[in-house]
């Protein structure tokens, strides 16, 4: 096996070497290669999910449009949501965690390399299975047998009565299988962080990236179980005549909602906490200052992790729960805003008094701060249950969660791509193209998702394949759709920039950003063994200590 573990094969090598190289990638257990596999897998499905979104937005560009039939539209929003959550957002976060956590804690690999590989291939199988539904029975014309029950698959719409055929089962099985993969990866991340830290790296000395992925992994362990259980119950209902969600036999539609959202709410924190991790690494480096309030950041994240398990029924405010239940969930949901706000303030304080460099990773993180602030505030609006009785299940909610996932998570993710691309490939991307990507995406994002709030205020529900004339929704939907094309253009720029420079970029060196955590002490890309000698650390910023021997961090921590 080659020593530069993730460099792609040079084109002029014989095709035999290409087969060997592919074989290496398919059989790898190396955390860096698996990280790259997760990330490439997620990028592919990002494009697919984006196409699904574009189809929906074209259909909604004007009222009573007939670009696609209602059946196809309903499959589109189901596939878009399921793909983006389970086959884009989760894998990409696992990919970055896989790549970076062992490097950042001075370890040679994850705790269980073979489990790591197994987990990845389970997720890959899940993704393929979901899309196999398109050809599963009727073939591609009419979008085949793709599930059309929505990504949260409410009962009893998913029962055999209302969902004949196997489309719902593709949804269930694909998500179930990838759920097992997620649990495997979470076990790996948790064990790696707790057991493989290098000497001197007590829990209070490890990078925030490691802390936040630790909390994420713990959440995965608690949250995926309820979804797995609910899906087993659904399959028992559909095939063995069980009655969990069979309202005609005394079963409950509401209990599906409880089980799903007991998973579903922690799930969104599973997605956003790694985004916080990216931002917590990038902002200090590009502000040239240590993270402000490290212990508070850790405490706030742990608090968010715990609280996130107690807010789920804010997705169910309109279901007719008692006023006591609704009131409790209002309180818990508003409460989780406090530690979240604290984090925003700490990032702000990190920049305060610093020297901010505006390279592409930092641009994306700054936009993250503004946009995540807005997303959090629209979340506070939704947490006031009576306001949610109007805004819930409308385009306001769609705007809110896309503001979090795209405006928050995806922006942070882009920042992470640009920040660690030099480390992973050894090459530097084009800063000009990076900035072009940024500004195009800012424009597209705001055109689409700022204006999307307005149809929500004006009474437009979600998951409708068309809408009536005279509701006052037309102009806003048009603007929302136009934004999509700017986003598409910017994504093309992004992919082109990275792919081109992966092959043709200038050498980046081991530490292009003058950063402070252990991954920047290795070569770019790192050797397969990561560290020639096990590092010893004394503070949270080991490279800072090396670069500033007169003024090391461990004197102040």
């Amino acid at each position: 096996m080659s020593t530069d573990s993730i460099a792609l094969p040079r084109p002029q090598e014989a095709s035999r070497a290409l087969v060997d190289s592919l074989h290496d990638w398919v059989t790898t257990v190396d955390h860096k290669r698996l990280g790259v596999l997760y990330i490439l897998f997620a990028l592919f499905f990002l494009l697919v999910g984006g196409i699904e979104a574009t189809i929906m937005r074209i259909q909604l560009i004007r009222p009573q449009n007939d670009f696609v039939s209602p059946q196809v539209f309903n499959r589109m929003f189901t596939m878009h949501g399921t793909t983006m959550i389970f086959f884009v957002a989760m894998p990409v976060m696992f990919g970055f965690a896989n790549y970076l956590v062992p490097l950042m804690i001075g370890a040679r690999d994850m705790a269980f390399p073979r489990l790591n590989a197994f987990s990845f291939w389970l997720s890959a199988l899940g993704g393929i299975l979901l899309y196999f539904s398109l050809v599963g029975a009727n073939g591609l014309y009419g979008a085949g047998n793709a599930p059309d029950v929505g990504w949260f698959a409410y009962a009893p719409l998913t029962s055999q009565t209302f969902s004949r055929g196997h489309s719902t089962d593709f949804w269930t099985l694909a998500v179930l299988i990838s759920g097992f993969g997620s649990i495997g990866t979470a076990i790996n991340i948790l064990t790696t962080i707790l057991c493989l830290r290098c000497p001197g790296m007590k829990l209070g000395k490890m990078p925030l990236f490691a802390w936040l992925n630790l909390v994420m992994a713990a959440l995965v362990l608690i949250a995926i179980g309820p979804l797995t259980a609910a899906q087993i119950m659904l399959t028992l209902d559909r095939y063995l005549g069980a009655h969990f969600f069979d309202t005609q036999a005394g079963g409950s539609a509401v209990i599906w909602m409880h089980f799903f959202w007991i998973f579903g709410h922690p799930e969104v924190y599973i997605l956003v906490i790694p985004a916080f991790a990216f931002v917590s690494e990038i902002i200090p480096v590009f502000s040239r200052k240590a993270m402000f309030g490290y212990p508070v950041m850790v405490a706030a994240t742990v608090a968010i992790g715990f609280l996130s398990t107690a807010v789920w029924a804010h997705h169910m405010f309109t279901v007719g729960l008692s006023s006591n239940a609704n009131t409790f969930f209002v309180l818990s949901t508003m409460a989780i805003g406090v530690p979240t706000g604290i984090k925003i303030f700490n990032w702000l304080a990190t920049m305060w008094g610093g020297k901010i460099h505006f390279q592409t990773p930092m641009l994306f993180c700054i936009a993250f701060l503004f946009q995540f602030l807005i997303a959090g505030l629209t979340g506070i609006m939704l947490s006031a249950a009576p306001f949610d009785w109007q805004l819930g299940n409308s385009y306001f909610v769609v705007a809110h969660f896309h503001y979090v996932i795209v405006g928050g998570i995806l922006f942070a993710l882009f920042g992470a791509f640009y920040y660690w691309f030099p480390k992973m490939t050894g090459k530097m991307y084009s800063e000009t193209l990076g900035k072009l990507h940024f500004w195009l995406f800012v424009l597209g994002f705001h055109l689409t998702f700022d204006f999307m709030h307005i149809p929500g205020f004006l009474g437009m529900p979600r998951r409708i394949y068309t809408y009536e004339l005279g509701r006052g929704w037309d102009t806003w939907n048009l603007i929302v759709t136009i934004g999509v094309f700017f986003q598409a253009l910017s994504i093309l720029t992004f992919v082109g920039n990275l792919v081109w420079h992966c092959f043709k970029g200038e050498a980046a060196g081991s530490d292009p950003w003058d950063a402070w955590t252990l991954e920047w002490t290795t070569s770019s890309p790192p050797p397969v063994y990561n560290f020639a000698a096990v590092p010893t650390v004394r503070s949270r910023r080991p490279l800072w200590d090396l670069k500033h021997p007169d003024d090391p961090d461990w004197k102040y921590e």
Partner: protein
Amino acid sequence: MNATPTMMSDSQLDGELPSRGHVAMFALIAAEAAIFAIFVVAYIFDLGKSLTGPLPKDVLAVPIFYTICLLSSSVTIHVAGHALGQGKIGGFRTWWFATIVLGALFLYGTAQEWHRLIYQEGLTISTNLFGTTYYSLVGLHGFHVLVGLICLSAVMAFTLFGDIQPQHTYRIDVLSLYWHFVDVVWIVVFTVVYIIGR
């Protein structure tokens, strides 16, 4: 390319950092506990909601003997691990075998009860809500017992070939954690199904 099968040593802070196997097994147990918790919640939520019979108090018989078997197997597996740690391979073999027998007895008891419920009482998973929640919860647990038994039997096979040595105490310990978890789940299931729910 060969995956490195050797144990990666935990860092030089040996003794300060927890062991990988135990941490991972606890993590797996946490995830499994989350799945079981939802089935338990469904069971409790659906108590009294069946539209037709049979009802729990009509057909359920408390499986005292088989419960004692399963819970004793936690004791025997502990004794086995202890024996191995002291180098007593023969003792380990005996107590490990006893664990498997007790676990298999428990599964046999479950099968027997299910046979009676299905063929004599007419209770299946599709009969009513009670049937649904009962078979799924007890069945999920039984499935985990079965998986555990398969792992225990594999270790039994290794033992008979003479491959289990005192240095494997750590791995046996981690596997025993799983078995103890299965027992704890049974205590919960037993309480909910046969005590609270009847």
